[in-house]
């Protein structure tokens, strides 16, 4: 896991500088405190802001733009951003309709966004994404981790805000997306944080980590590598068991790569997921396949299902123009 680096501790800011320069027509990077915002924020709409540790690119900065986020707040690799960054981002993009914070459910992110909201002089709402069914914590004192489903929440809430929905409505739609979204992932290897000298997950060849998170954290269990169909079947079992059989409601099927798995294999997993869902009479209405919520160079993937209501479908289909996601007029 050699890396392209100058000073390891500068990786995040150098990466962001490149990102901002490459997409200078769409975004602006503020270096101190660090956040990325739309070049032309619209202060008459709800400001949608997300953030979290870096290393999950294109999440979150890649989703800043029309129809999605107004600002993204990148922390160090796999570490939450600090309240001053979040506050500055909110001040830079917020208008009178207030700010929606989309936060992945990790103690660090929760607390840092909370402190920022306490300091911010304006209306805020916060939603916690917790789509990872891998966590089997029966007591659920912390809830679940937020993983790839975050993209779905950002897209839905971002589209609603773009259409002029008020803060309450944006928050409610985000909550609805969260309630309807479940994910489970699997890693075939680890990843290395630039400043670390060892990988986060050490795996022997032929092993896989079922239920892995997006930081190379341990998952449910370490088992021998299986065939793709068997892996996808296990992931979908876990997701569907938790989500409940969608019945007549169609699903968004999102196969997300963690960064180190070739696109060919992601589409192969998607093909397997389609076959399995067809068998189980689950109707797929929308699809997304690619490296959207990554863990640096980790080989592996997650499968996300979202039960789509009609309004959610409309919001999902709404135009989006960001460096990382782009469709529609």
């Amino acid at each position, binding site marked *: 896991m050699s890396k392209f680096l100058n000073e390891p501790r500068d990786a995040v800011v150098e990466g962001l500088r490149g990102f901002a320069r490459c997409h200078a027509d769409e975004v602006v990077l503020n270096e101190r405190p660090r956040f990325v915002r739309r070049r032309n924020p619209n202060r008459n709409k709800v400001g949608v802001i997300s953030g979290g540790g870096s290393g999950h690119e294109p999440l979150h900065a890649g989703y800043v733009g029309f129809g999605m986020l107004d600002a993204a707040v990148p922390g*160090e690799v796999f*570490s939450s951003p600090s309240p001053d960054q979040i506050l500055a981002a909110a001040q830079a993009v917020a208008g009178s309709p207030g700010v929606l914070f989309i936060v992945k459910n990790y103690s*660090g992110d929760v*607390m*840092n966004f909370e402190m920022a909201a306490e300091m911010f002089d304006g209306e805020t709402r916060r939603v916690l994404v917790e789509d990872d069914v891998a966590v089997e914590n029966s007591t659920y004192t912390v809830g679940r981790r937020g993983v790839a489903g975050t993209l779905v929440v950002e897209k839905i809430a971002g589209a609603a805000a773009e259409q002029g929905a008020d803060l309450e409505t944006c928050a409610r739609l985000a909550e609805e997306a969260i309630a309807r979204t479940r994910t489970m992932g699997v890693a075939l290897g680890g990843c290395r*944080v630039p400043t670390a000298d060892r990988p986060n997950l050490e795996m022997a060849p032929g092993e896989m980590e079922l239920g892995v998170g997006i930081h*190379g954290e341990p998952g449910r269990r370490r088992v021998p590598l299986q065939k793709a169909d068997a892996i996808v079947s296990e992931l979908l079992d876990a997701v569907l068991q938790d989500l409940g059989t969608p019945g007549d409601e169609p699903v968004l099927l999102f196969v997300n790569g963690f960064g180190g798995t070739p696109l060919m294999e992601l589409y192969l997993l998607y093909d397997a997921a389609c076959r399995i869902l067809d068998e189980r009479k689950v109707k797929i209405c929308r699809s997304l396949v690619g490296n959207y919520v990554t863990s640096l160079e980790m080989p592996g993937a997650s499968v996300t299902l979202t039960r789509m209501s009609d309004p959610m479908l409309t919001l999902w289909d709404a135009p989006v123009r960001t460096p990382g996601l782009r469709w529609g007029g």
Partner: protein
Amino acid sequence: MGRMSPPDGDIAVFLHCLQAVCGELLANEAELSALDRAIGDGDHGANLCRAAHALLEAADDLSSLPLPKALERAGMLVVTSVGGASGPLYGTMLMALGRAWPQDATAGAVADVLEQAMEAVGRRGRSTVGEKTMLDVLVPAARAFRESVASGSLGAALQAMVDAADSGLAATRPMRATKGRAAYVGERSIGHLDPGAASARLCLRAVARVLCESGSKELRS
């Protein structure tokens, strides 16, 4: 028992504590990260070293402030430099200390403020003792200090605090985490020390050593 240090010495002692704490953190980065790698995301050492660098850089500025303000500012620096979970927690602790710092800083008054600060940490983290976090060191250590200070010397109280920190850390090993990232690995968190508890113990020991020396009291190591 009187003041913990002479009035105009407050900030000097604070600076010594700060340097000692930062020194410990920088010296133990690898160990703290290794603990975090086992049940978290492996960055606890790096996170706290960012704080240490920020604090050391700001030491001059801090020393020009009254102690309560210096504590608050140090807390804010920790918050802004760390991110992660430990930033808001340690930052909240320092800010709470600064905000409630007693006019007349007797050991007893400081002990009360210390306990309140640990409660503020628990509120920030929505956590309590027994969840395999830094609170398992911070809370019993503060309690031991308060209880011992009421009945004995400052040196004895510091010693009681350090002892409680030691056993608080050890107690995290058999626990199953229910807060922080380690909660996500469930059963697999059992058998490992909590990284935040380990850093809390390091910091408390460093502070106790400085206070003990500045008060010319001895501290068993």
